[in-house]
């Protein structure tokens, strides 16, 4: 077995490795601050993924390359973690990500009506993005807003006790 392993050669065709992402000095300082919290760099992986997402729209291949270099990990280590967590986006999402809570308390308090209204208004189904890239709609599990159901999270902001009228007001006011 060992002999076989030794015989494995690097591929003869070029492997495309993207250039790592580059961030401003201010963002680098923010990243340093997170890494300094932990005795082991790897612990900062999730906070850093959120920063990359914020800066680049989603966690793309250059962002992953950057994190691997910064945390002294393999690219596969980064992907392995990224694909486990539902809040880490590995594909582009709209400028506004609407996440409607679909779990029981919201469900029985009228989540269906809100979802239908948002779908009709934006002309997309859950899991889709509007053609102009402005809105992505997702149905998600419990967001801890059960006493103020139904609700959605618009990017990081909670909007609670929703009615179709309130949804119109929130979405129409967005730049």
């Amino acid at each position: 077995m060992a002999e076989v392993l030794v015989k494995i050669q690097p591929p003869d065709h070029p492997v495309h490795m993207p250039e790592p992402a580059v961030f401003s000095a201010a963002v680098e300082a923010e990243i340093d601050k997170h890494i300094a919290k932990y005795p082991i760099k790897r612990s900062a992986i999730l906070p850093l993924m959120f920063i990359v997402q914020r800066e680049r729209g989603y966690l793309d291949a250059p962002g992953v390359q950057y994190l691997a270099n910064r945390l002294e990990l393999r690219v596969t280590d980064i992907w392995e973690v990224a694909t486990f967590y539902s809040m880490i986006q590995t594909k582009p999402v709209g400028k506004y990500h609407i996440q409607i809570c679909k779990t029981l308390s919201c469900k029985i308090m009228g989540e269906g009506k809100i979802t239908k209204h948002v779908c009709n208004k934006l002309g997309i189904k859950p899991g889709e993005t509007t053609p102009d890239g402005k809105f992505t709609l997702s149905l998600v599990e419990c967001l801890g807003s059960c006493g103020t159901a139904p609700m959605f999270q618009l990017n990081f902001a909670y909007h609670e006790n929703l009615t179709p009228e309130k949804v119109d007001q929130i979405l129409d006011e967005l730049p």
Partner: protein
Amino acid sequence: MFIGAIGCEPLQLRRVHLERSRTLDVYRRNGGYEAIKKVLETMSPDDVISEVKKSGLRGRGGAGFPTGMKWGFVPKDAPKAKYVVCNADESEPGTFKDRYLLERDPHMLIEGMLIAAYALGARHNYIYTRGEYKYLIDIMDVALDEARAAGLLGEKILGTDFACDIYTHTGAGAYICGEETALLSSLEGFRGHPRMKPPFPAVSGLYASPTVVNNVETLTAVPDIIKMGGEAYQKLGTEKSGGTKLWSVSGHVNRPGVYELPMGYDDMEKFIMSDCGGIANGKQLKAVIPGGSSVYIMRADQIIGKDVRMDYEGLVAAGSSVGSGGFIVMDESVDVFESTRNLTEFYKHESCGWCTPCREGTDWLVKIFKRIDGGSGRPEDARLLLDICDNIEGKSFCPLGDAASWPIQSAVKRFPEDFEKHLSGNGRHES
């Protein structure tokens, strides 16, 4: 939404309605940081643990394990660093109490963690908050900076030799990370897979070092325990369930909210029908899930006229459990087949995929629910659901598998009519 205490003086909710309640200034003017002062001036770490043991405080995250005993498991002579980790990953459906504690009284958590860190000899400590609660992480960061600037964190706290620091950490949308060992995997920068126990975190937790993981509500109870003494705190509740408890109430009640009740509150019917304003729109009560989604669902006739005492023993005797204290109240319009399907989809989505019974089992459960809903249900499907649950419960790597089984087991047994309706093809859900 209502936030307040019923049947006792507010303890953990004492400051939530004060203006600027999240500032250090208001916290201090209302009894804040007196407990840590008392601890540092007059108590040894063992005194603190003994007070917490006397208080009867049990883990408020859902498992209800005695907190003082958990702290006592940490070996005193371990040469490694020790850690206190606050579990603020609140993701149990129906539960939203920690959110308001973090939002309105962040310094109470800092003080509770300082006391725990002193008792256990922990220098660096973390608050693991679910990623969706980003605004709460920002609030916590401001409070931590305030505390640091006031000499309540860092070296020489309150002029003593005690040194301690607390940092925030973010999750990223995985329910499983509320399980303490999965939380630690996540905090170390890995996928949130649970770990084998033993070794328990108290012996080998974060970075393979002795670690105590406690829920927000558990840690925020500690300052009052120190101030009033363990025995006085215990007496607020019952012999086996000390103190007060926060209940998150959602669903078809007139007054949803976060309620602080003394443990052993009498009784559940009064709580729902009177304290929470009764069932909305004049409808009848049909079912209650009293402890977050992972506990047995109760029929109205298990509650009405039954004097159900609201504490660990009382709810078990009534056929459910306290769990995280997340009350989901359902009126007669709810189809329990549908509500159970909704929760099963939740568990399927949140199963981390590590062990086969839970990963495959929850997937099969959802498939059967879909088949029944599609009109192709078979008479034996209710039994098949129970059979699959039996193959998950107690056989999964961590409690998520049990949590996925219990709602179905109890729903099929307690609401057979709702399942039969679907199995005979009359319950086809139109949405």
